[in-house]
């Protein structure tokens, strides 16, 4: 898909989101859902970049999100670091963690990368709840319940003032996804695709698998960490319950709905999945089953996710 078409889809999606507060700005519940859509759009896009474009079966995206969230919260609560600085430092720290996790993955093939990265996810909960986490200031099993909101020149962005917070999140989300778009359409993106299609052939052309795989780990971890850090300051509290499988599965559904490797499908996937999840809420216990069935149907009818609709049209036009 061309950069122009990708940018158009992103522009329309974010444009529609941007005017929503004019209609639902006074409905806290919907504003909260919109803010969460913007956060998940970045996390899902990062996951799409590493899995869909670079072909690395990383299952550590939620773990990086939580690492970013906890790092910034600990810096703010324990060390009184200003929230904006804490968010940036959290991004840098998460990027470092991404590189550390990425290093052993370079020597592994697909499913083994998934095992290692999911291992990081599974290990994080006992670490944060245990003595190490408590010593670091994670609050152990209780979590951190008093995270200050983002404060920029006296303006606070928290759940208490949702409209400014929404536009701040929109700004962050647009910046992060534009970075992802730029990467996909740059030499990096071509290198990722080449490595994904045939690593040996790409390497014979001088594409360094080591360099690019580490770069994609670092970049996606950084962006995910930043959004995780912002999430902590927005919600004002954190607990290891984010590491339960619920969020992990929901993010995966976002990817499938949007279309894996079909950026900016992940952004659409985030909006569609979160909205569908809320619309199905009255079904109670049957919500998860219904959502699962809808995903199966979608995969059968649109193997490329909702982006498949655009791809079909592009093919037809061609």
């Amino acid at each position, binding site marked *: 898909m061309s950069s122009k078409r990708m940018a158009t889809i992103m522009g329309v999606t974010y444009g529609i989101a941007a005017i929503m507060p004019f209609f639902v700005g006074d409905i806290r519940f919907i504003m909260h859902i919109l803010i969460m859509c913007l956060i998940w759009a970045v996390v899902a896009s990062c996951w799409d970049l590493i899995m869909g474009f670079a072909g690395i079966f990383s299952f550590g995206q939620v773990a990086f999100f939580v690492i970013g969230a906890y790092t910034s919260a600990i810096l703010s609560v324990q060390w009184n670091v200003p929230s904006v600085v804490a968010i940036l430092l959290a991004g840098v720290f998460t990027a470092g963690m991404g590189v550390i996790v990425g290093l052993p993955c370079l020597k592994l093939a697909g499913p083994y990368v998934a095992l290692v990265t999911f291992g990081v996810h599974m290990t994080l909960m006992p670490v944060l709840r245990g003595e190490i986490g408590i010593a670091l200031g994670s609050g152990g099993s209780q979590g951190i319940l008093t995270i200050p909101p983002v404060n920029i020149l006296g303006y606070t962005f928290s759940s208490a003032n949702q409209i400014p917070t929404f536009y701040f999140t929109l700004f962050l989300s647009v910046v992060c996804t534009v970075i992802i778009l730029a990467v996909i359409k740059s030499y990096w993106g071509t290198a990722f695709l080449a490595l994904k299609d045939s690593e040996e052939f790409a390497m014979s052309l001088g594409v360094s698998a080591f360099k690019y795989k580490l770069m994609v780990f670092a970049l996606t971890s950084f962006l995910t960490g930043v959004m995780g850090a912002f999430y902590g300051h927005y919600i004002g509290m954190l607990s290891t319950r*984010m590491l339960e499988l619920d969020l992990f599965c929901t993010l995966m559904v976002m990817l499938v709905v949007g279309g894996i490797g079909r950026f900016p499908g992940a952004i659409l996937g985030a909006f569609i999945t979160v909205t569908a999840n809320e619309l199905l809420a009255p079904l109670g216990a049957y919500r998860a089953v219904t959502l699962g069935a809808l995903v199966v149907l979608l995969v059968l009818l649109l193997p490329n996710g909702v982006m498949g609709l655009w791809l079909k049209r592009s093919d037809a036009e061609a």
Partner: protein
Amino acid sequence: MKKISLISCIAVISLLFGSWAMAADTIPVGVPLAMTGAYTGSGDDYFKGIKMAIDEINEAGGLLGKQIEIIRYDSKEFAPEVVMQGADYLCGQMKVASVHAGWAGWGQDVRAYGKYDAPFFCDDGSQAAVNVFKEDPEKYYNIYQLTDTGIEQASSMFRVLMALPYKYPNKKVVIINTDDAWGVEVGDTLVSNFEKKGWKVAKRETVPYGTNEWGTIMTRIRRIKPAIIHVEIPSAQEVITFFRQFIKKPTSSILSYGWGITPREVVENLGKKADGIVGEMPSGLAGPVAPNAASQAWMDKYIKLFKHQLPAGSWITYTGVMAWASAVKAVGDPYDFKAVNKHLKEVGYKGHLGQIKWDKDNVLRLQAGAPVVHYQVQNGELRTIYTDPPVKPYKDAKFILPRWIKK
């Protein structure tokens, strides 16, 4: 095709926005409970009590002449944004008159629902939640804990273990608890109480949910031969697998399951094999013979409706709904939140077992009207052997020595 798209759009918009148009002749109440995920079982037990209370009120003509309408919200696994989303949905969008929950977020819920004024009843049983309340009691004035904290419940468990008519062969205890806020709070308190009393905590193990293979821990237990093994895991499968592996080669130990005895799957699954295990239910109703005629009638109705023994949570959530309804009746307006909260705080409620009152932290501390009920599994069902406070044997019930203890 265009017509279909139009119809789909209208359907989606109706689904999204239709719920706002709340009929004015009903009083909506919010019920955020786990309907999917790991906590579905307890969510179901809490809901039964809430629904029973609301059905009774509605059958009797409603509250102030209006029917009460339940609006459910799936709290899933209590991720922070889900807890907050629940509060914004129920209080912000659906404008509920009160919120009735069970486990609700262990402190996260206090912050989420404290932004609003509608009375919020929950069963966090957690000091962390109370600590959040203490940060700003005026802001969180609408939060009501239906049970005492894990610290106080653990102290009650300890008092009863010490009161059992049984001479312990040694002063060694093994404590196993989950790695969540509840498990750690109870485990820490028990360790402190046992050590103060001169006991040796021979092993303390903190385990994650989903631990079903107990081989290594069991080997240590068999080597230690403790007089008491306390397992604090509020989830059925872990305590069931623990017992099955323990009973293969048991030690002469009192097996105490704390809150973990109350998920009904435990006794239903183990049946008479579980005879001898002890445990507790906070803010509970003693059974199978209830303390008085009114509570017996209630329990009989519950068993008839749901076809099983009374699990943890049902009776106290029922009582919570009734306490709120009583306050609304006294005030005359469910949306006069300040007056309803004032009434709840100052007057409390006269329930099946007498007056209940929330303390200065809005916690329903151990009290005669909402006691901790201590059970032993006897003849394949939970039988109350003690109530607390004060610790006293319940009616003519007797503690039986577990069959695996060598005399």
